[in-house]
Structure formats: C-alpha cells, structure tokens
C-alpha cells in the first residue's frame, strides 16, 4: 500500500512537470503570433521588437523555459496583457469563483445522481428505470453551452427564476475577501443578503454543470448497485427477513459505493472542463471564462497561468481518486 502511494506520488510529480513543460511548448514553439495580436498586423517594427523584449520573446527558447520555470516556482506568471494585472492575482480572484461553482454543482450531482441511480437499480426494467436511463443518456450527450442557453431562455427570460449572469447583482458589493468563495465569505461577514444573492447567481450555471454530472454519477450508481444486488449475501439478507430499506441502503449501497466515489472524483475533474463552457454562456467571472478570454486575445502569460492551474487541479483530483480507491477497497492489493 505504502509502496503504491509513493509510486503514485512520484508519478504525480512527473505528470505535473510534464504538464508544465507541454504548456510552455504549446504556447511558445507553435507559431501563433501574440505580439501581432496585441499590436495589430501593421505595427511598426520597433514597437514589435520592444514588445518582444518586454515579454521576453526575443530570448533563446532554453532561457525562456528556465525563466518560466523559475517564475512558476514562485507562482509568478508575469503580467496579463489583457487585464494589465499580475496573472497570479487574477487567478486568486477567478479560481475561487470556479471552485464555488464546481462544489455546488457537485453537491447537486451527488444528491440527484445517487438517488436516481439507486431507484433505477432497485426498479430495474420498470418505467422508473427506463426514464432514468434516458435522462442520463441525454445528460451525457448534452452540450453544456447549449443547455446553458436553454436555461437562460426559459429560466431567465420566460420564468425569471435566475438572473441574467455575473456573480453578484450590480448593487451588491462583494464580501470582504477571506477565501474568495462568496458563499463562505458572506457568511463569515454575516452578510446574508450577499449570501442569497451569490447563491441566486450560482443557481443557473450550477444546475447546468450539475445536470451533466448527475447523468454520469447516476449511470455508475445504477450499474454498481445492480452488480451488488445480484450477490448472494443480498438474497441472504432478504431471506433473513430484513426490511427492504435496510437491505438496499445498509447492505447493498455501502458495497456499491466505491465505484460511485471514484466517479464523483472524476466528475470533479470534468467540471473544470465544463466550467469553461458554462461560465462563458452565463457570463460568470470564473477561471474558465478567464482562460477562454486569454486564449481569444492570445494573452500568453494568462493562458499559461490558467492552463497550468486547471491542469494541476485536474491531476490532483485524479491523484485523490486513485489514492481513495486504494484505501477503500480492501480487495485491491498494490
């Protein structure tokens, strides 16, 4: 077990190093033209050269790479050309926004996904099961950005249940920054109106992200429960005369929960990806939208910063899933 953990941690370090390197090479070697994007194509030569010097693009590649690594260790990506601020500062603002969204969405997905999945497995091949299978297949096929647009059209425009976008209403100022999570910070400061307003703004994007992940969790829950429900000890438990509820939740669900837990971990990784599209649709100022905007304006430092941060989170969630899996399932020997 310990050996496995150590091996997995070493792999994690290798992967992070690789991710960082690939990000650097993608953004430096392949011929996009960031300077041209900033100054326009017809910029005078001196200006272009000055800009290149400013960005360090005139240095040989090896030097650029070591400079980049040095900066990375201090969590310094340089200045974003779009926002004119330190990229790391921008990330500090946008990252918690995405985390807040992802956690809320995950919360929705876990509750809905597991309950629908359990019902589906227990009522196998009945209408509840068929309905939930279609629901989850539609969910995993759903383009997040389109679902977001439908939500805006129906829930915002026609029903007025969610706001148009953003993170807070214009007349409400953000709570004093502690964690950067508005829900948490507003509670700490005792500003309940801010709390409700933040929650209200999270609702739309969290439902979109949550529905898609609900579908994944529901599928895994169903198949995992079905497998366990076929085991002989479940029959024994029923023959013993235990109530069905006890059989399902105490005997079956507990043993079915390891794959579900894994799926939840994987879902969290998917959310980082889904947040890019969802945040763009809802105009939610999070990491995903920040990344997209920096991509579109070829804002090199911001691109590197946001991609690195997203990849690290993703690798970290995979690491946690693997370790949890090893820790929870006594049948697995490493």
């Amino acid at each position, binding site marked *: 077990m310990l050996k496995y953990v150590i091996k997995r941690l070493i792999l994690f370090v*290798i992967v992070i190093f690789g991710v960082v390197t690939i990000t650097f090479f993608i953004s430096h070697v392949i011929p996009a033209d960031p300077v041209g994007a900033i100054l326009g194509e017809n910029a005078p030569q001196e200006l272009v050269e000055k800009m290149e010097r400013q960005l360090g693009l005139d240095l040989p590649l090896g030097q650029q790479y070591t400079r980049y690594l040095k900066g990375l260790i201090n969590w310094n990506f340089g200045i974003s050309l779009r926002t004119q601020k330190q990229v790391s500062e921008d990330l500090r603002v946008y990252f918690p926004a995405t985390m807040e969204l992802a956690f809320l969405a995950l919360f929705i997905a876990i509750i809905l996904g597991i309950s629908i999945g359990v019902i589906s497995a227990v009522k196998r091949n009945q209408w509840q099961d068929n309905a939930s299978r279609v629901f989850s297949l539609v969910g995993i096929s759903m*383009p997040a950005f389109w679902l977001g*647009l439908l939500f805006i059209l129906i829930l915002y425009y026609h029903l007025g249940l969610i706001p148009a976008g953003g993170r807070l209403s214009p007349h409400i100022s953000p709570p004093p920054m502690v964690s950067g999570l508005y829900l948490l910070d507003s509670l700490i400061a005792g500003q309940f109106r801010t709390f409700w307003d933040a929650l209200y703004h999270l609702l739309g994007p969290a439902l979109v992200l949550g529905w898609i992940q609900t579908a994944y969790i529901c599928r895994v829950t169903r198949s995992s429960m079905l497998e366990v429900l076929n085991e002989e000890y479940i029959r024994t438990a029923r023959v013993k005369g235990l109530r069905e509820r006890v059989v399902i939740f105490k005997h079956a669900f507990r043993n079915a929960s390891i794959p579900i837990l894994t799926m939840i971990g994987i879902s969290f990784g998917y959310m980082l990806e889904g947040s*890019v599209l969802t945040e*763009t649709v809802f105009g939610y100022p999070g990491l995903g939208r920040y990344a997209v905007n920096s*991509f579109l304006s070829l804002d090199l430092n911001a691109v590197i910063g946001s991609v690195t941060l997203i990849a690290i989170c993703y690798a970290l969630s995979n690491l946690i899933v693997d370790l949890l899996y090893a820790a929870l399932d006594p049948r697995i020997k490493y």
Partner: protein
Amino acid sequence: MVSNLAKENLQNWIVSWGKRHSSEISDFKETVYLIKKSPLTMVGLAVILILIIMAIFAPYIAPYDPVAMHLDNRLAPPSKAHLLGTDELGRDILSRIIYGAGVALKIVLIVLAIDLPLGILLGLAAGYFGGWIDEIIMRIADIFMAFPRLILAMAIGTALGPSLRNTMIAIALTMWPVYARLARGETLSIKERTFIEAERALGTSNFRILVFNILPICVSTLIVRATLDMGNIIRIAAGMSFLGLGAQPPTPDWGLMVSTGRNFLINQWWVPTFPGFAILLAVFGFNLLGDGIRDISDPYLRRGRQ
C-alpha cells in the same frame, strides 16, 4: 468449358470459405441478432444512418444553399419556406444543419483516422517491447491525459490558429493516449499466451507476430472504444467552435451556428436552438450505438443475455 470450370472453382471456393469461417459467420449473425433485439441500439443506429445520409446527399436534400445570404430575409421565424427559420444573414438554418452533418462526421472520421493507427502503433510497441520504450511512451501518455481534454484541445487549437483543420489535429492529440493504453494492455495480455510462444518457437519474426497475431485482436477492442468516443469528439469540437477557437465562418458547423446565434437567443430563439439540438441528437445517437456495441462485444454480458 473454361468458364464453367472457373465457375465451379469459384463455387467450391465460396463453399469452402463458408465452412472455414463458419464460426465467424455465426458469430456475426448473432451480433446482428443482438443489435436487432436492443431497441435503444437500433435508435442510435437509425440516428447515425440519418446523419450519414444527410452528410453524403446534402446537396440533394438541402432546400437551399448553406452559405447563400439573403439579407432581405434575415432572422425569419420558422415557416413553410424555411422550416427552421433563417439566421442573421438570411441563410436557411435547416440547410446549414444538413450540411453541418458532413462537417461533424468529417471531424469524427479524421480524428479517429489519426488516433487509431497512432494509438495502435504506440500501444503495440509499448506492450510488446516493454522496458524503456514502454516507460517513455506511457509516461508521455500520462502527461497528455493529465489535461482536461477540452482545455488541451483549446490550447493546441489556439496555438495552431483557430480553424476546422486545427481543431481536428488538436482533438486527435488529446485522444491518442486512450487508444495507446488500450492497445498496450491488450498486447500485454496476448503476448503471454501459448500460441504466441509457439509462433516464437517456430522462429516467426517480431514483426510478423505483431502484425498477424496481435494486431487483429487489438483492432477490434479499439474499434469498440472508438464508437464510444465518437459522441465525445463531436461534443468537444462543438465546444471549441462555440468558444470561437474552432471552425470559422461561414463553415456550416453546428457549434459555430450556436455561437453566432447566441446573440439572438431572446428574440429569435430558433437561431441558436436548432443547431444545438442537432448536436445533442448526434451525440445521443453515437452514445446509444456505442453503449449497445460495448454491451454486445462484452463476452460476459453477451452470455448473460442468451
């Protein structure tokens, strides 16, 4: 006389071919039977067939030219003349969706045409030779898999410059590790079997063993996986076009149509809604088919159904 003899020979050959391959033939018949028995798989198959027909015969089916602009008929609501309405340049949305099927299928086919051979090549090499070759290939695969796919595809797509071609390259670069891993695992398990040992004892070269014994088994596994991935490829490509990092106008790409139609969501809902529905339907069809094929090709589930 000569032709009669040739005919007889051919007939004999067909009969003997049938006999030699009788197990494969009955296996194939059983597969067809299982597909027919599963209604959801049939629905998936039907959706995909419609997509393929739309893609091939687009010029004959589509009522209008997908890029012809009619500025006097902008943003017309669905009507008899334009069943799904027109977009902000007066182009017929239905025609653009029909042509878009070709774009979507092209993306899927090209990505897989890059990734399947690449994955097989790297996976076979890693699994068969092991040692440092294996270590290097699989660690690179790990690194590529450590990015969320859309993010990596976005990064590569942006660096190469946003276009349909670069979208396909970018998606292909994010997906190869899946196939390489599968092919490697498959190779590892086959390599140890006795029939390979026998081949080796007979002095068969590594190359021959790889190509004639291991490759065919890998290919079928990888194809099953590929059908499961087709929906995802469409979804990622649509996502990239939606963000403006993929196909560029005036390509009739579904994701791009939703993206430009976004501005008209409230007052002309049909502009972004129908292309988005096409994406959902296509991905749904591929997922249904992929699920069905996975179940059918799984020997455990297959036995269970009989």
